[in-house]
């Protein structure tokens, strides 16, 4: 492993906000060993924050301790605090470090102090909610998060988190309401619509789930043009086509229960459902077509199982 590529990887993890903690620690240790902090220039600070977070996440609280001029987490944090005194961001990092070893009461008290000093410190507020959640106090976590969203309505991450907490308590209708806020705030993001589709399905609102799934494929799947081979659906697109297939199967096979919709969504007519059934079958098979494997990737696997499943769920059988 060489230094340049390690630095590049670290920068890319930061840009994508990937939680690749084990890799970050590995690359980070290499950077410390080969270059030391002084050679990093302005990148040093972002790097220290990244390394500290990753090391706490992987439980390596003594990261780089064995390197002569290396930095243990505490040293990372002290260096950041010296450079940016009273920075809310460094304060929160210090809190995250405490979360690794201190009791939830102590950490919540610490975050409360930060919030008393500056009630707009949204990062500290979110950490506090996260600690409440992991200590099992879901009720207070939901209350706090709702208050936070009253103040910072445009916080999409907050709405997604609240939705996810509701889902974990099987309150899918409330979860769906949170996702509808996320969709209003970021209508171009197909992932939120996909999550809404899966939440609507979990809430037993199949017509609404189908509508959301179709919206996702409309946004992501390339429409076939004449004369070219159809695209191969992958990632969220394939996931959505599987969802379409499932909803259509439910609507075609069971009589009244599946078409009930709390959101008053009207399911497509039987004729359209059958066409959607054919189309989703075709699109799923396209993803498993042996000739469609991409360069650098192996062939699609598990095709026979998928084909059998499609046969079992086919509306005509």
């Amino acid at each position, binding site marked *: 492993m060489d230094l340049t590529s390690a630095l590049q990887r670290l920068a890319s993890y930061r840009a994508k906000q990937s939680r690749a903690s084990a890799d970050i620690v590995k690359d980070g240790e290499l950077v410390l060993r080969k270059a030391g902090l002084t050679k990093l220039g302005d990148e040093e600070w972002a790097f220290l924050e990244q390394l500290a977070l990753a090391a706490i996440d992987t439980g390596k609280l003594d990261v780089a301790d064995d390197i002569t001029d290396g930095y243990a987490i505490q040293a990372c944090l002290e260096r950041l605090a010296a450079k940016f005194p009273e920075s809310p961001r460094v304060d929160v990092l210090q809190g995250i470090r405490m979360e690794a070893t201190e009791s939830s009461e102590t950490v919540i008290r610490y975050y409360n102090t930060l919030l008393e000093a500056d009630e707009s410190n949204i990062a500290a507020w979110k950490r506090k909610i996260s600690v409440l959640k992991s200590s099992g106090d879901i009720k207070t976590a939901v209350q706090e998060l709702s208050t936070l969203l009253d103040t910072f309505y445009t916080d999409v991450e907050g709405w997604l988190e609240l939705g996810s907490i509701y889902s974990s308590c099987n309150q899918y209708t409330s979860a769906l309401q949170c996702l509808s806020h996320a969709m209003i705030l970021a209508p171009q993001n197909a992932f939120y619509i996909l999550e809404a589709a899966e939440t609507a399905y979990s809430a037993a609102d199949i017509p609404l789930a189908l509508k959301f799934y179709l919206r996702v494929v409309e946004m992501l799947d390339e429409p076939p043009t004449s004369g070219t081979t159809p695209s191969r659906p992958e990632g969220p697109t394939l*996931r959505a086509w599987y969802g379409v297939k499932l*909803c259509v199967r439910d609507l075609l096979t069971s009589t009244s229960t599946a078409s009930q919709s709390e959101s008053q969504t009207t399911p497509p007519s039987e004729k359209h459902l059958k066409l959607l059934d054919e189309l989703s079958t075709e699109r799923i098979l396209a993803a498993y077509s042996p000739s469609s494997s991409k360069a650098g990737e192996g062939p699609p696997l598990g095709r026979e*199982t998928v084909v059998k499943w499609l046969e079992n769920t086919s509306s005509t059988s």
Partner: protein
Amino acid sequence: MVQVSYKISHSAYTKLLFHAAKYPHQPVCGVLIGSLSSTSSSKSVAVTDAIPLLHHWTNLSPIMSIGLDLAYVYAKSRALDVVGFYQATEQLNDLSLSPVGGIIASQIRQTFTETLALVIDGTRVASSEAALIPFFADGDRWKKHPSGFSPYSPFELQYATSPARALSLIREQSLHLKLGDFDDHLERVSVDWLQNDQCRDVAFKG
């Protein structure tokens, strides 16, 4: 009442641990497959393998439902049954079967009466004991089995060395990173989530 005993193969045990280790900050779940053999006085379930399902949105049902369907199709093609459900949470000290986990386990129980549910015990993963907590159905509810994995309990590992071996495969060979679940497969269809031969422990048969 006929006593039911369960034996977990090395392959099933390592896959469960790999799945939890690959996504430590997310809940994960999957199914157990195997077969039942019975005599007049006893029944035993051999859990021969595991199929990892989800690590995204584990509380939402459609992909779980499809993954479960596919696991059934696959098990049938191998002349095996889906015999149980497993999960691990993202909280180290949360060792209960989640409400959704209970629902899925009950659903599996409709096709396999001796269904077992396992929760991965994050606090014991690094020990040499089985880091699994067995749950059994009591009516509609799922209860922690009082004896757990211990000598003379109805739950045992086929190889007592599986926990230590799994740990060393994770720590020294990072074999857990090669495991793929159904969510991974939907992102890249070249991921072999049904068999996961790429992370099989070559030193072990079974």
